[in-house]
């Protein structure tokens, strides 16, 4: 497989992927990129004069810093052949817009993809995308295949627009011959302890959220450990293109909110819109209102199972912890 470069390795999903790559004997070298200092979880992996794991600080949205890294002699010496694009996520999923009002996530995806295509030795790129890019029709069961239409409505919230833009960038390059591009569309990612990533409403700090009363969409979920396994499977597979990746479970949004410590307060639609506008005026953040808060979905993962050989390994549910509290857990199936 050769060396693997992982973007945003300091964020939770990036760390999980780096850990799994570290224990994979087929990965000779790992370059982990992050914006902050090296996570303490990597300390034990970086021991020795020539450690398998190299951590580099990088501003992923700056063209100059990304270009310098990809053209550096050091990276050539590390013989990187694959790139894992982990998007920005976690407590602050979206930074300030960069040049020409391009959102940070879109700028990062564009730069990493461009440099990977330009690099002579990089042969494959595995990108993590979001399954919330699909267009949802009224109903609680939009069964979505990889070729289901994307939501290209101009009224799509900016937080979703960045996912859609990134998705289309990777899709466009997936048809190219020089670089094998695999895009994994992920639903809500959860981690033991009640952490949630990549969900436009639930992502970020724990706390109450607002939702539309009378709607409780079904949300497919996947454990963060399964995401890491899916990335490893995609790296080892010759298959290219877009794949839906999801776990076995799906839960209603209200239940997912409770499980992850983000209780959802149901407000009637007009009140919710008024509350959103008021919050925007007060500078408390942009209102988020999208079909995904009303209409549920389920992902068809048969293509990933057939071509990548991916099958989820973890079950997600509630377990009673030692202190008596109920916690979200992902355990081996």
């Amino acid at each position, binding site marked *: 497989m050769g060396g693997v470069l992982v973007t945003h390795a300091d964020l939770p999903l990036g*760390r999980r992927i780096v850990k799994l790559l570290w224990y*994979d004997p087929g990965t000779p070298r790992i370059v982990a990129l992050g914006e902050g200092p090296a996570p303490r979880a990597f300390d034990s992996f970086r021991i020795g004069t020539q450690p398998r794991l190299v951590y580099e600080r990088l501003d992923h949205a700056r063209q100059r810093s990304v270009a310098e890294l990809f053209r550096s002699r050091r990276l050539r010496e590390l013989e990187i052949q694959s790139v894992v694009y982990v998007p920005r996520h976690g407590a602050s999923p979206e930074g300030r817009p960069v040049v020409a009002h391009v959102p940070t996530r879109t700028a990062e995806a564009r730069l990493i993809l461009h440099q990977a295509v330009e690099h002579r030795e990089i042969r494959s790129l595995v990108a993590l995308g979001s399954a919330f890019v699909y267009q949802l029709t009224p109903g609680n*069961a939009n069964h979505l295949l990889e070729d289901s239409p994307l939501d290209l409505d101009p009224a799509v919230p900016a937080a979703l627009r960045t996912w859609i833009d990134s998705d289309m960038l990777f899709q466009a390059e997936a048809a190219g011959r020089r670089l094998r591009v695999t895009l994994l569309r992920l639903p809500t990612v959860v981690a033991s302890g009640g952490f949630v990533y990549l969900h436009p409403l639930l992502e970020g700090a724990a706390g109450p959220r607002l939702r539309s009363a*009378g709607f409780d969409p079904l949300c497919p979920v996947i454990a963060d450990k399964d995401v890491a*396994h899916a990335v490893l499977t995609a790296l080892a597979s010759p298959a290219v293109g877009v794949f839906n990746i999801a776990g076995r479970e*799906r839960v209603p949004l209200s239940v997912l909110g409770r*499980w*992850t410590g983000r209780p959802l307060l149901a407000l009637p639609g007009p009140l919710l819109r008024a509350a959103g506008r008021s919050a925007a005026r007060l500078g408390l953040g942009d209102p988020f209102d999208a079909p995904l808060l009303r209409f549920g979905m389920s992902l068809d993962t048969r293509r990933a199972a057939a071509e990548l050989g991916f099958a989820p390994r973890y079950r997600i549910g509630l377990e009673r912890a030692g202190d008596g509290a109920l916690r979200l857990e992902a355990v081996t199936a």
Partner: protein
Amino acid sequence: MSHDEQLPDPTPRYGDGPERDGGPGPAAGDAALGSDPFADRDGPDPLAPWLDALDRITAGEILAVAAESGATAKSRQPARADELAERREPRTAGAASPAAPAIQRRRRPRASQPTRTAPPRGQALRRGDESELPPELRLLARLVGDDPARRLAAVGAGIDGWDRFGLSPNALQQAFPIFYALYRSYFRVRSEGHQNLPATGPVVLAANHGGLLPFDGAMAVMDVLLHSEPPRLARAILDRFAGALPWVNVFMARVGQVVGTHENFSRLLDDGEAILVFPEGIDGIRKPITQRYRLQAFHVGFVEHALRAGAPVVPMAILGSDDQAPILFDVKPLARWLGLPAAPITPTFPWFGPVGLLPYPVRYRIVYGEPLCFHERFAASAADDPAVVSALAGQVRRAIQRLIDGKR
């Protein structure tokens, strides 16, 4: 690849994982986490009011039997008092009061005690050996009978939480007593031709539609559940506007109904499900009284999918639905202005307000016709030929109309 074995500690631990700098998680003992309302078995029993009502009915029945056997009204009151006193006092084994043994057995069933024989019409009072049912279904079995509870358990088996279309077995159990009462007592459904329901594999049940509110769909689903062997839950296909209705969309999804998109239809058939379709669509439920039991134009998509999936189409006639809310007039401009499928005027609506929308207690009759196995005569590629699909849909339409005309 077994990466887990090489990890330092593959056992998930609380507080382990990426959360250290991944944002604050819920604090220990965070009550906000709560639990799944459907999975929570420690809360108040939702069937308790029903059971109390059942006990009262049973007590009334016993008193009626006692009256028939010559017991005086004077002797009844002490029996009731003794029974209540018996409930308050802790019982010892073999010391059951002779005054009200049936009540005590119904309230606290014991495996060693003989169960009461079911009355012929009171299937809701029948109980069998409940010990094999899971605890939550034992309560349901006491309410609706053993056989329906077992059937419900069978269709919910294998679904952990919610299925991919939002079906929740727990929600189904909670809704079942209401629809069972409607099926048995309100609409008094009679049905025939159950032998035409395939035991396994994908099948499309195509029925006529009527009655303003889709109680015909609910009764058809109940009938299939109660009469198919092995028990099957028919997944009714909903019009898309139902998916946008607040609360309605959630309820429909939790009890197994699915919005009719091509992807959903195809996936359901791939899963080997029984699908209930109303090819008339919304035109069926808003047709005026002058058109009752006259089938409207058919949507033909169900034939396409049946051909592709190799599923038989079972024509199904539902009689009674067109009489439950006869539409005298449909104010179409008003419906368009309100964004509703119909603005009906019936003998009771809008004169009695929303109550006027409730269906009249008409008797339902459901008839299953012979399966139409188009896939045996046509290749799956015939689904791409609109002329063939339209002709086959016409066959289904005529088959349903014949069933209706033959039973009216």
